[in-house]
């Protein structure tokens, strides 16, 4: 296990170092997320009572679409340059490679959220810095990154990958998208009674799809 953790850390180190030097993923994701939040802020009526629901939707649209952008690019860059095969040649369990890539993607998306959430809070005038909401944000992002990493690897070896990734992800991600938006709305409106059930759903989804993605990654990457 110790060896596995060291190898996961190396994959994350390699991805972070590459991103710090190239800025190919993070910049695009962040601009996309912030631009979406700003656009929705001008589009919606912020004086009415429905701003919490609108805000929750806008926030998840921004993060999910920025995530699509980042996930697709993160794997396809490595596939195109052939370095992904070099990674697959290493004598490590393919699940370890999945975990390394998944945690790297989770970090990138979380970093985008870390910067975008305060901007969202200021523009929509909503109190997002609540422990329950941050937990919902984390669980929603975790599920997105788990499924997204697996499907991005599948889509990366196809010609129409930019189109294919969202098409593949949408039906599988639907439960997590619905649960994330719903729980965010409930927390922002202060209706915390049903929050537990939605958070449980998100948690169960994350555990299930993380386990499935880990288990099938080996099959997905082999010809």
């Amino acid at each position: 296990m110790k060896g596995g953790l060291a190898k996961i850390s190396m994959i994350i180190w390699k991805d972070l170092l590459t991103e710090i030097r190239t800025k190919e993923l993070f910049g695009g994701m962040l601009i996309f997320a912030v631009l979406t939040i700003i656009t929705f802020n001008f589009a919606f009526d912020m004086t009415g009572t429905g701003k919490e629901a609108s805000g929750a939707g806008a926030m998840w649209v921004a993060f999910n679409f920025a995530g699509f952008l980042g996930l697709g690019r993160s794997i396809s860059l490595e596939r195109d340059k052939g370095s992904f095969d070099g990674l697959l040649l290493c004598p490590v369990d393919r699940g370890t490679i999945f975990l390394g890539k998944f945690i790297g993607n989770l970090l990138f998306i979380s970093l985008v959220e870390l910067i975008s959430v305060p901007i969202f809070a200021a523009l929509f005038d909503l109190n997002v810095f609540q422990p329950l909401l941050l937990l919902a944000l984390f669980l929603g992002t975790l599920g997105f990154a788990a499924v997204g990493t697996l499907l991005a690897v599948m889509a990366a070896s196809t010609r129409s990958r930019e189109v294919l990734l969202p098409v593949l992800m949408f039906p599988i991600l639907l439960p997590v998208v619905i649960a994330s938006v719903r729980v965010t709305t409930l927390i922002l409106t202060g209706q915390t009674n049903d929050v537990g059930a939605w958070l449980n759903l998100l948690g169960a989804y994350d555990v299930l799809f993380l386990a499935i993605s880990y288990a099938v990654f080996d099959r997905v990457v082999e010809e």
Partner: protein
Amino acid sequence: MNVSPLESPLLASDDEAVFTPRVPRVKITRLTKRFERRGVIRALDLELFPGERVALLGANGAGKTTLLRILATLSRPTSGSVSIAGHLTHKAPDKVRAQIGVVAHQPYLYEDLTAEENLRFFARMYGVADERSRIDEILFMIGLISRRDDRVRTFSRGMQQRLAIGRAILHRPALLLLDEPDSGLDREGARVLERILGYQRTTGGTVLMTTHDLRFGLATADRVLLLENGKIVLDAPATTLNEEELDERLSSR
């Protein structure tokens, strides 16, 4: 140090592999690979022994790269089995991967990491014990010690290919798979490759390489295999073959 990379004793410090010529290092049994309905490798049987340098020749589409990718565990066979250093690829792929080094058409390097960072990354992934000294050794051997802190993106094709060879031998593999290793190599790279092939032989390492350069293949290999439509149609010592006949045979396909 004023020693040229090719004269350095650095390889002499490597642990020598056990040289047991009669026990095959690679054993391929009834190997078949089909893409949809097209058979690329067809019921192929083959044994490769420690210390052998084997050139795999064949026209484009004969199945050379597919065979190498199956041996490298990057591609799963449709049927049949492959055993490398006593481990079956479908049962213990990680143990097989620890025993092989691969040089392919693409260098399998990270362009935005430096030469040293690339080697460090792969050294950790392969669990190389003497990481620091081994990286120095490899960089010196491939003539890139003065460029160790430069990003791979700034390297010429020949330098990238040398670094790719360095990456492939970093963990002292028992089987070296080379897919047209001579393509894109500069003069120094060709000398590095020649030395590595010689070293593999003396330490009992097995080399399987594809090449379109018949002269290079005949000069560097002990044994030549000719692959046609996924089957081996010729298996002979390199010394018994001549370039013109082989060229004619390949051209007629």
